[in-house]
């Protein structure tokens, strides 16, 4: 057995996660202000804080005959799943909890998001929210298989499901260099997992907010914060999987992990302002006809390379 992880990291992890989630939200606000042509876009930096302050004092609103328990479970599951997924992500070289099956654990938390969004959409007893829930399930059918193949391909290249070992296996040559298809598919599924930007159909504007339409006050805050946290975790996992983990010159490993995470996160946030929402009735076909075969080929190439 290895030495135990320091106790303070258990406290530091949620703080770090919340900080990065805020940074993503602030960056998103600034990009939006730039797009709206506001003369001082930097002033939008504090918008997420003001929004959060408002959510804290806003009344909780009800719908007729909701299933409160399921709605609450759905809403709370988002940040909980994000935090539990973050536990296995190595920052530098060590995660808070090093699991031999870290990749599987991360995937399990991601699937919990399916349940969370569906319960939130279904529980409030509102047609718009229900359609938002449906949309997430359809989206899941489109991205989940390519996503799992992307995870497995990286794990196959390293010969381990432990994220720390996956990162260590990229000594010298990052996986992104010889698994580009897997990396791109992973980024795509990262957007889908956080139902963000081009994959934000479940909470899209044509449904006035979709699965989140009936939420207000603290419920909305927890839901949206959870979504940003998922985006952060999805970006953070890309680092050990494809970008060499904490490897890099001069700076300590944890700094490199953070720098790379922020770079991926910024790209994901930026995608929202660059691309429009993908509708799954259109996208499903491409996902199954192109993404899955491409991922299978990528996995085959990796399997042949690592063959002893």
């Amino acid at each position, binding site marked *: 057995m290895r030495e135990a992880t320091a106790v303070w990291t258990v406290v530091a992890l949620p703080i770090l996660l919340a900080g990065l989630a805020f940074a993503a939200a602030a960056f998103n606000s600034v990009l939006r202000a730039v797009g*709206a042509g506001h003369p001082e876009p930097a002033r939008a930096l504090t918008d997420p804080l003001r929004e959060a302050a408002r959510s804290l004092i806003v009344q909780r609103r009800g719908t007729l005959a909701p299933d409160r328990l399921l709605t609450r479970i759905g809403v709370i599951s988002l940040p909980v799943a994000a935090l539990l997924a973050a536990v296995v992500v190595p920052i530098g070289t060590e995660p808070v909890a090093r699991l031999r099956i870290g990749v599987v654990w991360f995937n399990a938390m991601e699937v919990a998001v399916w349940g969370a969004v569906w319960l939130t959409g279904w529980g409030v007893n509102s047609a718009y929210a229900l359609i938002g829930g449906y949309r997430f399930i359809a989206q899941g059918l489109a991205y989940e298989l390519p996503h799992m193949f992307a995870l497995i391909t990286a794990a196959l290249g390293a010969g381990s499901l432990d994220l720390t070992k996956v990162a260590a296996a990229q000594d010298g040559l990052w996986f992104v260099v010889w698994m580009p298809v897997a990396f791109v598919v992973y980024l795509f599924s990262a957007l889908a997992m956080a139902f963000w930007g081009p994959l934000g159909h479940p909470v899209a504007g*044509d449904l006035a907010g979709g699965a989140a339409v009936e939420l207000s006050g603290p419920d*909305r805050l927890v839901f949206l914060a959870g979504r940003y946290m998922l985006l952060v975790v999805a970006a953070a996992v890309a680092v050990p999987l494809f970008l060499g983990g904490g490897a890099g010159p001069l700076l300590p490993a944890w700094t490199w992990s953070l720098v790379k995470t922020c770079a991926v996160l910024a790209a994901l946030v930026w995608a929202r302002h660059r691309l429009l929402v993908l509708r799954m009735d259109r996208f499903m076909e491409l996902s199954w006809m192109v993404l899955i075969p491409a991922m299978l080929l990528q996995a085959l190439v990796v399997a042949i390379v690592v063959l002893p």
Partner: protein
Amino acid sequence: MGLSARLARCAAGRPRPLIAAVPGATGVRLAAEAEVRRRGWRPASSPGETGLLLICGEPGAALDEAIETVWWAMPGPRAQVRVDAAAASAEIAEALDRAVIGLADVAAQRVAAGTRPAMGGWSPPARHEEHHMGAPAGLAMADRAADRDGLTLDVLRVPLGPVLADWPAGLQVVMTLQGDVVQGAEVEVVGTGEGVAFWDEPWLAAREGRTVTSGAAARRLAAAHLDSVGRLLGVAGWPSAAARAGRLRDDVLAGRPAARVTASYGAFARRIGRSRLLRWMIRDFGVIDDAVVDRFDLTGPAARHPGDVAARLAGWLAETTAAIAAVDDETALAGDEGPRGPVTRAPSAGLIAALPALLEGAEFSAARLIIASLDPDVDQLVAAAVSPEAPDA
């Protein structure tokens, strides 16, 4: 008390306004949108998200009822701003400033919250007399009907509008949904019978004998199309492009010099026109062919650019390019071909009449795109109700 007062003050400066547009008051809606954008506020899309209801124009009784439902569903702290159809930008700004002060006033908000009944959720008016044994909360269970695949599925009747973002003011569509497939749609206009058809003004004025230049009409036409394009992009889930369209619309209306508008519009139109992703998402549904044009007596862009949603978007973009090239035309305006067709014939009536047939069988998101790609102007109907068509001179 101290903490929530501080939070309220912090939050009040950045409210998320929900704009309730009233037919016949498009001018004030545009001014309000511009003011909201100038302040860097981000519009809300649902009652749960907003704390500030911004009512642009004087709604009649029927629309007022819908607006009251939205107000009722808004959690506190909340504020309501009503600006009348003739309000100037300065008045709108002042009204918004007052609302911000009201939102930060914790004591008053608490008193207001105390007088509200508990927020139990809106209940639909009973549709029939029968009792529903064991039904949850005394509600009727969803009906069932055969769906397009021959299955028997639950049917829900879901109203869309009249208070909705990226939506024609005063339009209400009651959809019969199975899952997210529209099985039927009933369209209704919730209007006031007052107001002016803002987008048709230059042509109407010219018909009344006033001097209007072709350039002024071209500006109005370009702005009308940019407004429609912005909504379509908003519904398609491309908020950054929609915001760009809104800014261009306001620049054109504000009388910016042709050279500047041409350059920025050119870049915008190229970006939209070249987006293969957008075309892929909006093609092959909502098809209007010659039969539909004849049946509903369609005129204007919808008839000139037959085809799917993508064809109509391309048509708007092309017509806007031509209009922007003509904004300096000083000749007197002739003809009555407004943004949506001949202004004397209320062409939006045909667009609205065509909706149910086009929506049937579409998925929810496709249905919203179809409505946005036709963008009927309800102003034409309410204005027509007060000033019946003048006989040709």
